[in-house]
């Protein structure tokens, strides 16, 4: 009996707290909107955020494209018949994948390209390309190795050359296997672009951070930043979802 009563009191307590919060929120709403308006819109901060977003997007796209390119390159090294290329591929994967992205970026910017007056942006693109490439190389390799070699042999017996058999048989099948991991690789790339500020690239996180310290009110800037990153991640998800749907429809 006593237990039941206790439960009831707790339930009522929860409901009351919930309503209290909502009421407080409703009364506070104009102030929140006002504060948001003044920190983000009136101050012109949204322009900065838009700039940052563009940089983040550029970094992501360049990272993904270069990453796919480097990934394919390293993957073909690892799968080649030449022993020295195989070892080189293994070393590249081990080094690039094992190094934290920030370290890699700083190494490139402050050591490799120092004094060459190459813009930080391009260095960052290269860094992300290399890092993503090392991950993608392994994704590609495992998904190519998952293909039944006898199917490729069957294609060769029909007269397909090595490269055409790869293009018509291996590639479509391994792409299907690689896709989900490839997608999550790009999503994590988006998030890793947030450290490009270390080598003075003004991307979204750097802008948001600056905005917070300048206005003394980091909440709105951070909140907006998180929402934008989430939006980007879901955009990627959406693109792959559409692609999947199209694939299923065929």
């Amino acid at each position, binding site marked *: 009996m006593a237990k039941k009563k206790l439960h009831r009191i707790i339930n009522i307590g929860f409901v009351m707290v919930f309503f209290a919060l909502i009421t407080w929120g409703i009364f506070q709403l104009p102030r929140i909107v006002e504060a948001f308006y003044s920190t983000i819109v009136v101050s012109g901060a949204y322009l900065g955020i838009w700039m940052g977003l563009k940089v983040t997007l550029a970094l992501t796209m360049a990272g993904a494209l270069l990453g796919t390119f480097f990934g394919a390159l390293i993957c073909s090294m690892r799968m080649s018949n030449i022993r020295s290329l195989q070892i080189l591929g293994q070393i590249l994967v081990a080094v690039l994948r094992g190094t934290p992205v920030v370290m890699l970026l700083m190494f490139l910017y402050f050591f490799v390209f120092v004094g060459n007056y190459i813009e930080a942006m391009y260095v960052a693109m290269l860094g992300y390309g290399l890092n993503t490439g090392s991950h993608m190389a392994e994704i590609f390799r495992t998904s190519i190795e998952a293909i*039944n070699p*006898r*199917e490729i*042999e*069957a*294609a*060769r*017996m*029909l*007269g*397909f*050359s090595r490269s*055409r058999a790869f293009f*018509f*048989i291996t590639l*479509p*099948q391994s792409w*299907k296997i690689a896709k989900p991991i490839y997608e999550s690789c790009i999503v994590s790339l988006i998030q890793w672009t947030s450290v490009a500020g270390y080598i003075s690239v003004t991307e979204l996180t750097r802008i948001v951070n600056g905005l917070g310290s300048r206005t003394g009110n980091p909440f709105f800037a951070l909140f907006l930043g998180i929402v934008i990153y989430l939006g980007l991640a879901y955009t990627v998800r959406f693109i792959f979802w559409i692609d999947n749907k199209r694939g299923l429809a065929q």
Partner: protein
Amino acid sequence: MIKVENLHKNYGELRVLNGIDADIDEGECIAIIGGSGAGKSVFLRSMAMLEIPDQGTIWIEGENITTPGFNLNKMREKMGMVYQGFHLFSHLNVLDNITLAPRKILGMSQPKAQQKAMELLEMVGLTAKAKAMPQQLSGGQCQRIAIARCLAMNPKIILFDEPTSALDPTMVGEVLAIIRKLLGRGITMLIVTHEMGFAQDVASRIFYMDEGIIYEQGSPERIFNSPQLPKTKNFIQKLKLFSYEIVSKDFDLIAMVASIDQFCQKYGLTKEHIFTAQLLLEEIVTSLLRKCYTDRQPDIQFTIEYAEFTKKLKLFIVYRGESINIIEEGMDEIQRMILTGKSESYTHSYDSGANHLKMII
């Protein structure tokens, strides 16, 4: 058409091909038989240069395909291969599996390739499956599609590498029927097979492989009915045996029937054969238990002997005790009728405390 000279292939220490010579004319159908490890598949695969021979030459239509730098892709367009494991392209449906090569290699237009594919599907009796994915098909259907895929390239030579070995016994027939249809179309066929009856029916020549060479070759009649060399004789007349012993009254009848079934399935006996063997043995064993071993533990042994080539099944039943012909003396009218009806002949003899019953099915 195909000429092979002194073909050698080693894997490390293992000598697989040991100097093969062969001459095959256009339109011939060669069945390659032999024990496992005799190098049949390696020989077949080296015809397509899927295994690179260590030594020796292969001429196809007068061209030496073993020359380094020879355009193998061009040569393989004229040559088809059907595998034990089908190896259909798993990301494409049946129709695309068949049309891919004609479209991409021969440059055929999509509608033309599809039309041709549908004709081939009709030939193998699978038009209804044109849109199915390979994973949805049975083994026999997959193999028929694989044959259609190979035919779509109008090959002059088809290599069959144990086309029915991976199939359920019930599906072997449908695939063999398709291969039979290809006879007389001028396609040169090389078939590695364990289906002796099929080999005898369709082949124009039999290659018996052993010791890494074509040990003996000749017409099916010669190889199967009067093989000349000792190893061929041994292989052709080889018998498959299965023995079972019953020494306790509460033996496991179900297990016995199941193991007979397993043995028969393994050697590809027909359903009727299997059923008859099971029925006869079951009847005899139960009658024996009822008649002879009422007061003591049974002592029954039986052996099934299957001559792979003649497809004859023999049952030998040995039971210890007094002389008694169980079929004459231990069965009722109906049982006797079944037994004599199902078996071709039977004999009974008694020798030093043991009854011997021989039956031929």
